[in-house]
């Protein structure tokens, strides 16, 4: 029997979380925690598995998020970090890189002609990088295109 992996799933709430939950079948059998940046009424999959961090809007709270990422990752010791953005991904990817954790990023469907800022920052840090639109390949030549809209 294979050991379940330990996953840290990082997302802001709203559409990014919906995109993360849309791929839930890929990690449902792993042992995962969710890191969210706003307290919401949790769907069943996230109940008793969620940690909330401070909500940063490209401000100094980002540095608080770095500390929170370090505390969470040091405690949970995941095998991988998966994120669909937005902002919360970056502090976790930075600390995750320092801890040699495998990192997976999925760029949002909403990036059609221009990538998100989060994607630009995550690309050099990620071990696996997915984009949903082929137009993103000119920004991220090593990305994997999964075009299923």
């Amino acid at each position, binding site marked *: 029997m*294979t*050991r379940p*992996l330990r*996953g840290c799933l990082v997302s802001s*709430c*709203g*559409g*990014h*979380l*919906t*995109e993360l*939950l*849309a*791929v839930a*079948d*890929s*990690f449902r059998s*792993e042992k995962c925690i969710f890191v969210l940046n706003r307290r*919401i*009424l*949790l*769907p*069943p999959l996230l109940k008793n598995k969620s940690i909330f961090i401070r909500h940063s809007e490209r401000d100094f709270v980002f540095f608080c998020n770095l500390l929170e990422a370090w505390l969470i990752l040091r405690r949970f010791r995941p*095998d*991988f970090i*998966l994120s669909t953005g937005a902002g919360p991904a970056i502090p976790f990817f930075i600390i995750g890189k320092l801890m040699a954790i*495998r990192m*997976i990023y*999925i760029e*949002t*469907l*909403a*990036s*059609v*002609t*221009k990538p*998100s800022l989060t994607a630009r920052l995550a690309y050099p840090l990620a071990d*696996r990088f*997915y984009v949903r*639109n082929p137009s993103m390949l000119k920004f991220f030549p090593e990305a*994997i295109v*999964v075009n*299923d*809209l």
Partner: protein
Amino acid sequence: MISKPPIVGTFVTLGNLERRFDRLINTVLEAYDALPKPVLIQYGGTSPSAELLQVSQGNAVSFVDYVDHSSFNHHIKSSSLVIGHAGVGTLLTCQLHGKTPLMMSRRKMFGEHIDDHQVEFLALAVSRCDALAIEAMDDIPCKADQAVASIRIAKRSSPIIVDLKNYLDSLR
């Protein structure tokens, strides 16, 4: 005991952004007569004025600021018509439940979003027949009929899930 949310005729969703999007609410209410009733408007950061709330009281319109994930899915699944901002979460959930939403994109020039990515995203969704775009009240009646009548296969599987699962297996 938690009660199940009521079934609505039209579910309007502005997402959970804190930026206002009065254009969509105003357009929807102007086209009220053409909408399946009752109408539920999830307004997020676009809190309705006291005047708007008063006008709506005599009609089958109700407002809610946010709904939880389960209620959001319930409203999308059970309503006859979904109208929303051009958000990815809204479109994905509509796809999950086999719905064709009417969508209006938030625009940077009106302060509705930080950029115009919703404009591009909606154009892509429309080109793939996954959504119908609305810009003004006149767009709603015929597109509402089109959306209500459309029958879609609910989207359940995704190639990314397969690839991601294979990658995770390679990490063991």
